[in-house]
């Protein structure tokens, strides 16, 4: 009984496979694709995918591709004679980037709260917000937290808003912090650079590269929350919009 039905289902499956593949990516694939996009694509295409002339991912506008397969091919092979280089991605990872690109059309970037004033935002970052206590912009500030010098093309407006209001919402592996307590009782908190079964490496507020043998420590822990405070209530809606606008304007040095 099931055999006949399944044979039919299989024939249909094959026929529509390429259509189905156009849509229906899982949130996990989209999220993974987003990470890959930010790491490898956003620097040229921009976080919103509209920084290259004639291309706007958020509007589904591609110059030389229509299907997912065509986009995968361009991601992996590049476009000779243009600024689009071949990417060092497996077919799977390229597919996840496509999943993210497709998701961008579904989540428009309209800066909620309206565009702020980048100049005012700069003043907040350097003053009231005390952001440079941990972050760094154009060589000023601390290297303890993530460098914001080129955060503009790497993060979308909504992502920056979320990080400012709810820093614990998503902590990527590269931005984790850890705390160790030495035998002598000294507590050191720093950005987690690396760890293995027997050792742990940190970068602390004094900008020291530290390495500890775990068996020499009284205790050690990777923090599950972000050391960054939430700015909900600390900054006004307008100030938040200004800060986001300023951060979006940071494109790094050429």
């Amino acid at each position, binding site marked *: 009984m099931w*055999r006949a039905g399944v044979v039919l289902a299989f024939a249909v499956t*094959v026929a529509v496979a390429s259509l189905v593949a156009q849509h*229906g990516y899982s*949130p996990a*694939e989209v999220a993974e694709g987003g990470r890959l996009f930010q790491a490898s694509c956003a620097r040229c295409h921009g976080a919103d995918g509209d920084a290259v002339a004639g291309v706007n991912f958020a509007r589904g506008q591609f110059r030389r591709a229509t299907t997912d397969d065509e986009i995968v091919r361009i991601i992996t092979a590049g476009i000779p004679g243009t600024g689009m280089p071949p990417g060092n991605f497996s077919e799977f990872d390229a597919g996840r980037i496509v999943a993210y690109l497709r998701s961008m059309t579904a989540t428009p970037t309209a800066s909620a709260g309206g565009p702020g004033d980048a100049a005012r935002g700069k003043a907040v970052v350097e003053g009231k917000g005390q952001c440079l206590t941990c972050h760094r912009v154009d060589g000023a500030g601390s290297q303890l937290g993530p460098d914001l010098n080129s955060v503009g093309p790497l993060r979308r407006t909504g992502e920056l808003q979320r990080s400012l209001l709810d820093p614990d919402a998503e902590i990527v592996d590269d931005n*984790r912090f850890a705390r160790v307590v030495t035998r002598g009782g000294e507590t050191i908190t720093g950005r987690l650079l690396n760890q*293995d*079964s027997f050792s742990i490496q940190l970068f602390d507020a004094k900008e020291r590269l530290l390495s500890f043998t775990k068996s020499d420590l009284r205790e050690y822990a990777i923090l599950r929350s972000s050391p960054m405070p939430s700015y909900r209530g600390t900054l006004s809606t307008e100030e938040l919009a200004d800060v986001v606008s300023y951060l979006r304007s940071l494109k790094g040095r050429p």
Partner: protein
Amino acid sequence: MTGRVLKRGIVGAALVASAAAFNSSWTTVVAQVSFDRLLRSAEEPQNWLTYSGTTMSQRYSLLTQVTAANVKNLEQQWVFQAQSLEKFEATPLVVDGVIYTVQAPNDVVALDALTGRAFWIYSHVPSPLARPCCGRVNRGLAILGNTLFLATLDDHLIALDAKSGRLVWNVTIEGARPEAGYAFTVAPLVVKNKIIIGVAGAEFGVRGFLAAFDATTGGELWRFNTVPGPGEAGNTTWAGDSWKRGGASVWVTGSYDPDLNLTYWGLGNPGPDWNGASREGDNLYSDGVVALDADTGTLKWHFQFTPHDEMDYDSTQVPVLADLEWQGRMRKVMLWANRNGFLYVLDRTNGQFLLGKPFVKVTWASGLDDKGRPIRVQSPTEEGVVIFPHAVGGTNWMSPSFSPRTGLFYIPSLMDSYATFPRRAVEFVEGRVFVGAFPVGPIQALRGGPINRRIPEQGYGAIQAFDPKTGTQKWIFKLADLTDSGVLSTASDLVFAGSREGYFFALDARDGSLLWKANLGGNVASGPITYAVNGRQYVAVSAGNSLFAYALR
């Protein structure tokens, strides 16, 4: 010449005369690895004559010079750096003072076990059409008589003279085309005069098989289709003609019980990996173990760990054979920590399910029924669903070890691993990957890097010791990163293993406490071995692209 530690001095036959002229004190030994020696290999622990140490595949050695008390004095003796950037997945053979191993992809190397210096290298350059899914790797060789056997990525079986490295014969394996994804990465198993191998390629929609070849001529003697065709028992467990692309590949070496004359092999995933819609049914013998008559290849029994798999839980683990007192009587059992997260004990005379319990966190099945069949509660969905363990599994291909002294089963484990499994339509195109949507999870399935900033909740590696009589954990040694390492246990109650971080370490086999470690700087992606030369015990392991040998200082 067997059964005792031999004096140094294996050299190529052509070199014997001149070598003797230079140093008349050298003892010339002719390696004659009869099948009887292979069957009794446990009695000559100075050698490592088969992939898993013995045909029982326990990776347990009777060498006891290195003990819990002195293991801290292990010191590196030599390093052989492979001329390859691939993972070093081969388990070396050690035959009377000579190490035979494979430098990726398919170079056979003979080394002096004392110094690591090469005697000869035979290079087989596989066709560029070969497309193994997960690296241009090889897991090692087999030896019989004076002949070494290599199965290649481009579907050849090659016989070499162990003394000279010269080609004896080279046959093409029928029906296995590299451009269609058929590839051999497995170390062959010798049974009597037969060389048994199986084909990889389930990620390309191949139809798997095991085959035996005449050691003298290379002629094929029998073949067992791991996906039964029309008219063969089990074919109706595949909808329509899905059996043609059914996978059930073989990429880890099997075992052999001489009393039963049965050879046991673990089989890989059904194709496509992560969408079973096109292949309704149990999909025999994918994700199962088959027991074959070694003379004829006839199926005697089978046991399927994961019927109708949609998570890529290959059963390509080494079947570990042990004789245990089981509820008052001695039984011939098979121990199996499966990629699907369950630890099984089977009666290897008939495949009867004796015990099965999770050894890692498992959510896809709520348990096993009284026949050992999983009670399935999760499968991939369109939108994706989080399933424990990750597709990489609760363990994978790395070899476990069983110590008859401690009675414990040592399992390289991937703890708390998970992934989101989306179900995606997939079309078969010959030579292209045929899998569906790759699951997404925080751990890296195939290889990691030198930086690890994950938290344990995202998955980590461990060596676990289980009592197979009860299926309970006796101890766990936790690692910060995953492990792709096999395990070695010794009669001095040591357990050796490694990690992706590049550590090679020794644990107390009874309580798992760390006794010694060394940082080798590269992923340990094969099983450690031990051997002896001139009465001195060595422990060897590959890490990164190199093979390292240790002995007491």
